[in-house]
C-alpha cells in the first residue's frame, strides 16, 4: 500500500492538471498518528497531502453527493460498493465521478492497537504486512493480519467493483466459509440473552450520531432522529430511545449496507453497531441472495417485487 500512494498522487496530479476533474477526495494525515481524515483538494500542488494506508477506515463514498462538476474519489473495495449504491439510488451519476480504485488488504483496528499501550501512541508507520507502532515508553512491531478490523477480516470484496483506474495490483480475495460467525453466535442465544447482549452493546451510546454521519447510506435531508414534528423517537439517552434509534437506523440500511465499517470507525464509544446491520446483511443474502453494491444493473431487494420473495410472515 505504500507504493500505491505514489500512484494515487500521480493520478490525482494528472487529473487536476488536465482539469479533468475539479476536485479530488482522498485521505490526509491527521494531527495524531493513525488518525487519517478525509480531505478535498482542488489544486495540483496539494496532491502531496494525499496519503493512503491501513488507517483509512472511513468511507469516502460518503462525500461524493451534491458536488458540483466532476470529482475524483479514492475508493477501497467496500467504498466502490457504496458508490454503486449511490448510483442505483440516483444520488450521483456515474459520469460525474472518476473512481480511483484501491485494491485493499484490510484496514486496522485502532482500538486494539491502542490497547497494547498504556501511554499515547506517538508514531505509526507500516512496511508491507508489518506495523511499527511507538509510544514514549515502548516500540512494537505488529503483524497487520492480527490487527485487522473485524469487517476486513471477513471481507470478500477487497478489489474495487467499479473504477476508472486502479492505483495498485489486484489483490487475492479471501475465501470465507462462514461469513457471519458473529450473527450466528448471537442467534444461538435465547431471547433474553440476546436482549441482554444488545442492551449491553448500546449502554454507553451518547447519541452523538457519528455512526450515522460517517455512513454513506444516511443521506436523508432530515434524519428521523432529528424530526420534531412528529417526533419519532426521544432525543435523550433513555435506553428505549437508544434502542429505537439503533434498530431503525439499521433497518434503514437493510439491503444497502456494504459492511465497510465506517460507523464503527467513527464511534467514540467503541460500540460495534455492526451487530445490528450484519443481521440484516445476512438476511439479505439468505433470503434474496443479495449483497449490496455489486452490480449497477440490479435493483436492491427492498425496492423490487419478485414472485419468489419470501412471504411466509404475512398472514
Amino acid at each position, binding site marked *: 500500500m505504500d507504493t500505491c500512494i505514489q500512484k494515487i498522487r500521480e493520478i490525482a496530479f494528472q487529473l487536476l492538471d488536465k482539469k479533468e476533474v475539479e476536485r479530488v477526495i482522498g485521505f490526509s494525515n491527521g494531527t495524531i498518528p493513525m488518525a487519517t481524515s478525509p480531505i478535498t483538494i482542488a489544486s495540483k500542488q496539494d496532491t502531496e497531502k494525499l496519503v493512503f494506508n491501513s488507517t483509512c477506515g472511513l468511507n469516502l463514498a460518503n462525500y461524493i453527493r451534491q458536488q458540483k462538476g466532476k470529482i475524483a474519489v479514492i475508493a477501497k473495495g467496500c467504498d466502490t460498493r457504496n458508490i454503486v449504491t449511490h448510483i442505483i439510488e440516483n444520488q450521483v451519476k456515474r459520469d460525474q465521478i472518476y473512481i480511483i480504485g484501491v485494491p485493499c488488504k484490510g484496514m486496522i483496528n485502532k482500538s486494539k492497537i491502542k490497547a497494547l499501550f498504556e501511554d499515547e501512541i506517538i508514531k505509526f508507520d507500516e512496511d508491507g504486512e508489518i506495523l511499527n507502532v511507538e509510544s514514549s515508553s515502548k516500540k512494537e512491531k505488529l503483524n497487520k493480519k492480527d490487527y485487522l478490523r473485524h469487517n476486513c477480516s471477513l471481507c470478500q470484496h477487497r478489489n474495487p467493483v467499479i473504477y476508472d483506474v486502479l492505483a495498485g495490483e489486484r489483490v487475492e480475495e479471501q475465501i470465507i466459509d462462514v461469513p457471519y460467525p458473529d450473527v450466528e453466535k448471537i442467534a444461538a442465544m435465547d*431471547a433474553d440473552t440476546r436482549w441482554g447482549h444488545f442492551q449491553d452493546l448500546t449502554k454507553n451510546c451518547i447519541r452523538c450520531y457519528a455512526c450515522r454521519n460517517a455512513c454513506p447510506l444516511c443521506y436523508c435531508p432530515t434524519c428521523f432522529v432529528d424530526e420534531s414534528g412528529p417526533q419519532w423517537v426521544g432525543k435523550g439517552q433513555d435506553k428505549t430511545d437508544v434502542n429505537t434509534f439503533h434498530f431503525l437506523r*439499521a433497518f434503514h440500511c437493510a439491503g444497502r449496507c456494504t459492511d465497510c465499517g465506517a460507523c464503527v470507525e467513527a464511534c467514540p464509544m467503541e460500540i460495534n453497531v455492526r451487530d445490528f446491520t450484519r*443481521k440484516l446483511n445476512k438476511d439479505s443474502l439468505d433470503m434474496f441472495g443479495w449483497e449490496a453494491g455489486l452490480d449497477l444493473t440490479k435493483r436492491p431487494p427492498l425496492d423490487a417485487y419478485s414472485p419468489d420473495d419470501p412471504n411466509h410472515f*404475512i398472514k
Partner: protein
Amino acid sequence: MGNLLEHMGIERDRINFSWISSAEATKFVEVVKEISNKVRALGPNKKLVKDYN
C-alpha cells in the same frame, strides 16, 4: 424487520403482519383474535418499553 427484532430478543409472536382488504371483516376478526391469543400467552412486554417516570 421481524427478523431483526427477534434477533434483538423481542419475542417473535409479538410481531405480526397481515394483508386484509376492507371487505374482509371475518379475516380481520380472525387475525386479531389469533394475535391477541399469542400475545396474551407471552404476557406483558418488558422490552423496548419507555418509562416516563
